[in-house]
């Protein structure tokens, strides 16, 4: 029982990070129908920038409390990622907006390769460890071990999701985003500056990605130039699982994928009589994804899109 609870907690923490990254995928997809392959790399850059700032601050002002240092890292990483996403959209996606859909997909892949290798040149091939700045308090909860960091991650993720929901549902920009997602042409006719809305979408997604990047590196204690790839893949899967283009779908899909993965890793050995071990964790996630999509082809919360002629 306590193993179950422990894995559930771990899964929820991982899942809320997936959900944050998935939001970026789903927002861009909702508006442009583009799989923004470079989004995972934006997460990675966020983590790397934050770690650089943290390292520099620890050298310059060793007396600063750890939480402040990490916060400063996040606060620098957010605008850095925003600028990056703005640039990516402007250079690699905007000129191809009228091109066939696979063309921007290829540039997205190209941008992803560029960012990965730039990061490798700048930060090196080795793993960068996250300095132990954050308080290591932890609690016992019905036999499960919960750290303060885990609680903060989940709480922060939920706050961001709520904030994003408010932004999309209650503000002028949010309304413009929803209108653009429904029909770019009609939104334009109604006086929406579509280009600006699309830029805003990328920027918001990148800001969330930066926070997710810091979270993931703080959680695992590591950052690496290649970390964005698998994370992006999982997050995109989560977005599809929930129903791509749907914000709640991305949140639900992320949390579900995290929990499934953690429980799968914890129990797969018992389930298969020791035949398959925990290194099949990723397989588990993908099997569930395929299974769900076979029975619900447009994801858990996706609208049933009528066959368009």
């Amino acid at each position: 029982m306590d193993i179950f609870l422990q894995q559930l907690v771990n899964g929820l923490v991982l899942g809320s990070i997936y959900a944050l990254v998935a939001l970026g995928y789903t927002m861009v997809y909702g508006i442009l129908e583009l799989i923004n392959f470079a989004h995972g790399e934006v997460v990675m850059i966020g983590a790397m920038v934050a770690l650089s700032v943290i390292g520099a601050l620890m050298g310059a002002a060793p007396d600063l409390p750890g939480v402040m240092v990490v916060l400063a890292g996040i606060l620098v990483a957010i605008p850095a990622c925003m600028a990056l996403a703005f640039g990516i959209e402007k250079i690699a996606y905007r000129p191809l907006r009228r091109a066939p859909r696979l063309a921007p997909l290829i540039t997205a892949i190209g941008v992803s390769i560029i960012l990965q290798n730039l990061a490798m040149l700048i930060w090196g091939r080795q793993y960068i460890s996250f300095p132990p700045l954050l308080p290591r308090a932890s609690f016992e909860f019905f036999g499960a071990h919960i750290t303060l960091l885990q609680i903060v991650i989940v709480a922060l993720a939920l706050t961001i999701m709520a904030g994003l929901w408010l932004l999309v549902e209650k503000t002028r920009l949010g309304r413009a985003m929803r209108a653009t997602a429904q029909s770019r042409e009609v939104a334009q006719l109604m006086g929406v500056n579509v280009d600006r809305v699309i830029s805003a979408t990328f920027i918001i997604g990148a800001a969330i990605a930066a926070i997710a990047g810091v979270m993931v590196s703080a959680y695992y204690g590591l950052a690496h130039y290649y970390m964005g790839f698998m994370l992006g893949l999982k997050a995109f899967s989560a977005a599809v699982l929930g129903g791509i283009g749907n914000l709640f779908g991305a949140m639900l899909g992320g949390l579900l994928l995290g929990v499934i993965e953690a429980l799968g890793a914890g129990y797969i050995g018992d389930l298969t009589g020791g035949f398959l071990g925990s290194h099949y964790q990723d397989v588990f996630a993908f099997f569930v994804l395929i299974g769900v999509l076979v029975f619900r082809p447009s994801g858990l919360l996706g609208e049933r899109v009528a066959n368009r002629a």
Partner: protein
Amino acid sequence: MNRVLEPLRARPLLAFALLAALLAALPFLVGAGLGNSWVRVLDFALLYVLLAIGLNIVVGYAGLLDLGYIAFYALGAYLYAWLASPHFGLHLPFWAVLPIGAAFAGLFGVLLGAPTLRLRGDYLAIVTLGFGEIIRIFMNNLNAPFNLTNGPQGMNLIDPVKLGGLSFGKTLHFHGLTLPSTYLYYYLFLAFTLLAMFVALRLRDSRIGRAWAAIREDEIAAAAMGINTRDMKLLAFAMGATFGGLAGGLFAAFQGFISPESFTLWESILVLCMIVLGGMGNIPGVILGAVLLTVIPEALRYIGDLQRATLGHVVVDPSDLRMLLFGTALVAMMLFRPAGLLPSRQRKREFAAEDGVAAQEQSSLYDTKA
């Protein structure tokens, strides 16, 4: 350029003869000009051409976005290794293993396609991607409880291709002519590539190919015309998978060693880039894309020498810079030629069309939308 091509167009036989002579002499020209390691690159380029032709059936002809195509390549390669290496002690001949491998991959294509082909567009993409990862992870871990794939170490000592008394793994001395193994494989791969090209071109113009084009352009209209869209899509999937399995078997025999590392998601993406970059649906374009994307990364290895020659020393490690330039090339080529380098005639028309028509065409299935 036209002045050279014009007389050739008037004499197709001459053009054909010239092309055949060029293809036959290519390994010698490349070997003499650039060194024998480049003949190996040439062999890989042909393997990628085979893969790209196969994926083009799925993506370019039928309009189904497949991001896990390399899994079929892996299945073909592993089946070859199981049936022709010391791993299980089986050493079946090449002409028997290759078709079995292709059929094995094709069977998996049907197994994956049957439940998932009613998914649309990007949902299908993510499912195929997941399938590719599943296959790779299984290959990586199936060394226990029984050793099926030898895990991350991979399987080695795979039998080279043997035809009659001729082993492709050894240098052939023939009437004073010396043909190293890579040269022999070049001709073998060339033969398979030409065969694949022929099949792909004939398929495109056949009843099946026209059905695929109809599904790609408008699935509902195609169904209304009496096309069994499910069977046709399944056929495209199986056909593409078969090509992948065939290329995988050849790869295993050529390399003599396979490991899960050769079958990552990046490889799937690379093959997709090849066909989109070259010009989707158009066989010459697909071939050009495959050759370019195999050769460019290899050519970029010379950046180190270039730096030494111009700057006196190596400033940036060339292997670090290589992929960076590759990514830049991908973006730049797509920005300048969004329809690919050699688009098919139909696609070119769609691009030149007026806005309204163009917009409608862009929302069509050709671009594996929806």
